[in-house]
């Protein structure tokens, strides 16, 4: 969803409009001097193509949700930065006017957020250099994925900055960021994969269409294995390293409870089923509250080196371990669920006579 006028202040709207209009003027002057005359109809028709392609939904593997192609990076690869920027802007104008998808003053913001980053950063600064490497292995998929992810992250960040600077929405910066960035990470991943897949397909039929030539060595299909590997690496990094910075501050629920009752957690009843189950949970929890048990020294002393660590380092190790263990188990669990559901739907979809 594009930004709407109701959440923009006049200052932010005008500033972004000036920037976008300036970029449009710059790109227009570049196109005007363009020697390739096919550009003019090409931009129009490809703009219509992107507009129409955004209406086809496909299902994203490993999740139940559907997505559609954004198209910014794809246009940049096919047309180059300046033409792509104009094309994306024109599609956004149509969407704003005919579908109220984004306001008219906010159009400046939307053109900048959705057009500038893929066209002038994702494509020339990330995709092109990565793809031009003279290695034998075709790098389109990682190049497109990284370019798409970074473009979308920057776009999402720009949305947050503009909304917070406008001051109409009360959403604080950190909350907004923590909502927007992870969602757009996933969206960027899918966008990169689909863009790479389409480019590979087109390259096999018409190599002259792709401006940056690359070796067609591995242009068959999209490698799920590489994507899963990428996910695994990211999970390890997040669980292993980023969990160190996990805040000790109470989360939203604990904060609300503490405001209402004065404590962060409510004590359950002392007797009955609840008490029995919670005693069981205390016993089997390997990593209570995401760190090593303080009472059970055997776990920690087994690994001799850990007894020499300071408490700070021990708590970090505990958190890393929980992060990694938790991440691995979640991954395994989701794969199991996906696998099981896939088997089930294959069975139920068998044609009955």
């Amino acid at each position: 969803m594009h930004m709407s006028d109701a959440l923009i202040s006049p200052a932010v709207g005008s500033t972004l409009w000036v920037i976008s209009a300036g970029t449009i003027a710059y790109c227009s002057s570049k196109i005007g001097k363009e020697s390739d005359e096919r550009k003019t109809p090409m931009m129009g028709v490809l703009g219509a193509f992107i507009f129409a392609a955004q209406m086809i939904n496909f299902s994203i593997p490993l999740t139940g949700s559907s997505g559609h192609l954004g198209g910014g990076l794809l246009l940049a690869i096919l047309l180059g930065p300046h033409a792509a920027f104009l094309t994306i802007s024109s599609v956004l104008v149509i969407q704003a006017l005919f579908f109220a998808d984004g306001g008219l003053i906010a159009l400046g913001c939307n053109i900048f957020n959705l057009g500038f980053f893929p066209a002038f950063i994702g494509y020339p600064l990330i995709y092109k250099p990565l793809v031009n490497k003279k290695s034998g292995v075709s790098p389109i998929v990682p190049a497109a994925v990284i370019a798409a992810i970074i473009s979308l992250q920057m776009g999402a960040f720009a949305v947050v900055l503009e909304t917070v600077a406008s001051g109409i929405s009360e959403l604080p910066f950190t909350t907004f960021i923590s909502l927007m960035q992870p969602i757009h990470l996933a969206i960027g991943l899918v966008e990169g994969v689909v863009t790479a897949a389409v480019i590979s397909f087109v390259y096999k039929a018409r190599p002259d269409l792709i401006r940056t030539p690359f070796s067609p060595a591995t242009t068959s299909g999209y490698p799920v294995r590489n994507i899963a590997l990428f996910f695994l690496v990211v999970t390890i990094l997040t669980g292993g390293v980023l969990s160190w910075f996990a805040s000790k501050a109470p989360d939203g629920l604990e904060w609300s409870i503490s405001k209402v009752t004065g404590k962060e957690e409510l004590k359950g009843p002392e007797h009955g089923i609840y008490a029995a189950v919670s005693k069981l949970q205390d016993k089997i929890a390997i990593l209570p509250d995401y760190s090593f048990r303080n009472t059970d020294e055997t776990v920690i002393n087994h690994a001799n080196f850990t007894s020499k660590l300071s408490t700070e380092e021990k708590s970090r190790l505990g958190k890393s371990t929980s992060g990694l263990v938790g991440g691995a188990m979640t991954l395994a669990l989701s794969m199991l669920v996906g696998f099981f559901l896939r088997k089930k739907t294959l069975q139920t979809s068998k044609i009955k006579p």
Partner: protein
Amino acid sequence: MQNIEGTLLNFRRIDLLASENSFIHRIDARVKILVTLFFIFSVISFNNHEISALLPFFIFPAAVSTLGKIPFSYILKKLILILPFAVMIGIFNPLFDRHVLVSIGSIEITGGWISLLSIIIRTMLTVSAGVILVCVTGFNTICQALNQMGIPQPFTTQLFFLYRYIFVLAEEVCSISNAYRLRSVTGRRMGISTFTPLLGNLLLRTWERAERIHLSMLSRGYNGVFNKIPVTPLNRTDLKFLFGWSFIFIVLRFNNLSVFLGRLITGIVE
């Protein structure tokens, strides 16, 4: 799939509405664009918690849509579609802004709810203004007006071409999606491995279509230059429309008409 047929119908409906003949339709497109932008600008320039001062602004969409013969139900439908998205962002306001601003009897209304309502009213005003603009002007006329107002020619040419070929491409996507639905066994949405060849094929066909278009343009004498559309001067009605509405917006922006009328009426009652 998103409703492709609905999209095409939407375009055609707007074209139909724009081809009517009314007082508003006859106003110069540049004036209509400027007045709409000024309207939106005035609306969004209010602070977070403003509600009563925003309400008189409904007079602009009401007047223009009535004079321009735009059905109220059409605008309402568009508003209903857009409202959930504005509420989605604004719904956080009541969570974060808990200062009580208004008490009606024993009910205390926090600033958060007031700003949420303000966001909803703003959305209704700005979206209806945009919808009405394109319904009383028509897209091609808007592009011409943009060109006359100084938007560079390559961009307005791009807009013209895009609009022209959206219908062609949307119909192609329509037949692709129908073909898929008729042939798919499981009835599920297509996966990426199906989507890629479909879209790749469409892209190749589109590219070849663009090359054919270019050749046909060349054979009709295209030399890379589009003739600039002559600038028609504004007549007195256009100028009266422009300055009249601008004056009204400025007055409404700096004077709370709702409060004024309320005081007037309660003054008479007392």
